[in-house]
C-alpha cells in the first residue's frame, strides 16, 4: 500500500493511438515509488489507478520471457528488470523500443527481428541424423563443447540488442545482433553441420560485415548473452570457410546404445515393464 513516505516520480510515457492521432505524444503521470518498485510495476500502477488506456506488453515480470523491452531514460532495457530508484532521476521517460514499428503506446512490433532470426536457420542442421530437424538418436556432447555456445543460447528474443545497435538504427535490412548471435550459437554447436548453409544467410551485404563493434548490443543485453562476442567469432568462422581455410565440420557422433556404453561393475537395467 502507498505510504506518505513514498517518493513521487514523474513518468513521461510516450503514447501512440493510431486511430485517434497519427503522431506520438507524451503523457505525464506521478507515481509513488518505494524501494524495489520496477518500471513495469509503476506502469501497471498507472494502468490501475490513473489511466487504464495505457497499453504495455509484459508477461513473466521476472526477466525471462523478453516481452517488456522499453526505452527507459535513454537506454533500451527490460521494464521488469529496471528498478525506478536505480535510475536516480526524478523524471523517468518511457518510450517503446526504437528501430521497430510501433503498434500502440509502448508495444513494438518485434516481427522484423523474428523474421531475421528465422532467416539464419536457428536449428541444428544435420541432414543424415536429423533430416526433419527432430533428432532420431542422442548425440554425444561434452561439457566443454557445451561451454562454447551455451552463453549465446540464453537469448530471450527481447529485441533490446537491436534497439541498441547503431547499424540497425538506419539499416532495416541489417540482420541485427540477435540473428547474428544466434547464427553463431548454432554454428558453434558441436552437433551442427550447417556452417556453410548458414553462411549463405549471414555472408551478405547487410549481414555480418555491417557490425562495426560498437558493443552496445552486449551492454544492453539483460541476459549476458554478449551478441557482440558471438558475431566476431562468427565472422572468423565465415571468413575461414569462405577462403577455404577451414573444411566441413563433422557433427558430434551419435551416442552408442546404452548396453555397449556400460562401465564395468554396473549391472544392466531391469526388463521394460511397458511394451514399446
Amino acid at each position, binding site marked *: 500500500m502507498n505510504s506518505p513516505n513514498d517518493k513521487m516520480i514523474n513518468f513521461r510515457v510516450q503514447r501512440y493511438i493510431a486511430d485517434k492521432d497519427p503522431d506520438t505524444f507524451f503523457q505525464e503521470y506521478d507515481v509513488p515509488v518505494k524501494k524495489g518498485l520496477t518500471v513495469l510495476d509503476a506502469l501497471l500502477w498507472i494502468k490501475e489507478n490513473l489511466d487504464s488506456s495505457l497499453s504495455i506488453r509484459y508477461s513473466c515480470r521476472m526477466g525471462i520471457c523478453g516481452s517488456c523491452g522499453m526505452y527507459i531514460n535513454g537506454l533500451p532495457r527490460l521494464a521488469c528488470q529496471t528498478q525506478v530508484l536505480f535510475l536516480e532521476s526524478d523524471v523517468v521517460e518511457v518510450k517503446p523500443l526504437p528501430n521497430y514499428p510501433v503498434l500502440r503506446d509502448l508495444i513494438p512490433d518485434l516481427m522484423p527481428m523474428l523474421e531475421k532470426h528465422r532467416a539464419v536457420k536457428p536449428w541444428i542442421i544435420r541432414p543424415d541424423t536429423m533430416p526433419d530437424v527432430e533428432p532420431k538418436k542422442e548425440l554425444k556432447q561434452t561439457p566443454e563443447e557445451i561451454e562454447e555456445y551455451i552463453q549465446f543460447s540464453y537469448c530471450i528474443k527481447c529485441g533490446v540488442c537491436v534497439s541498441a545497435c*547503431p547499424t540497425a538504427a538506419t539499416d532495416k535490412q541489417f540482420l541485427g545482433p540477435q540473428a547474428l548471435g544466434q547464427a553463431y550459437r548454432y554454428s558453434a554447436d558441436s552437433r551442427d553441420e550447417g556452417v556453410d548453409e548458414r553462411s549463405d544467410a549471414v555472408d551478405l551485404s547487410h549481414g555480418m560485415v555491417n557490425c562495426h563493434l*560498437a558493443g552496445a548490443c552486449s551492454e544492453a543485453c539483460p541476459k549476458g548473452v554478449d551478441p557482440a*562476442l*558471438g558475431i566476431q567469432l562468427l*565472422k572468423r568462422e565465415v571468413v575461414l570457410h569462405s577462403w577455404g581455410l577451414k573444411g566441413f565440420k563433422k557433427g558430434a557422433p551419435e551416442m552408442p546404445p546404452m548396453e555397449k556404453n556400460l562401465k564395468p561393475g554396473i549391472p544392466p537395467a531391469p526388463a521394460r515393464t511397458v511394451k514399446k
Partner: protein
Amino acid sequence: MEKTAKGNCLGIFGWFYAGKYQIERYAYIFHRLSGLAILLYLFMHIYVTGFRIHGREAWEGVMSKVGEPIFHLGEYMLFIAVAFHALNGIRLIFQELGLFLPKPASPVYPYKPALARVRIFFYLLMFISLVLMFIGGLDFFIFVEG
C-alpha cells in the same frame, strides 16, 4: 494500423549519439568520422601530388597554395584522424576476426561483456595514438624549418 519503423527508428542520430553507452561506441563514431575525412583528403591528395610530374613550376605553384597556415592546420587535423583511425583500426582488425577476445562462458550476473573485459587493449592503443599525436604536433608546430 501501425506506425512505420521509419518513425520509430533512431536514424543517423543512432549512428552519432552514444549517450550512456560505453567507450567502444564512441570509438565507433570517431572511427567512422575520421574514415570519411581521410577518404575525402585522399582524393584531393592524389590530385595535388599528381602535379609533380608536370615540372618544377607546376609543383611549386600548387605547393605554395597548400602551404598556407589554414592548410597546415588542416593537415595536422588529418594527422590526428589518421593516428586515431589506424590505432583503433588495429584493434578492430584483431577483434573482428575473433582474436584477443575472451572465450564464451556461462554468464554470471553481473555480466561484464567481452569488449569491456579487453578494454585494456583499447586504452593501450589510444595511449600510443595520443603519443603519436603529440609527437606529430611537435613536428608540425614547434620544430620549424631550419
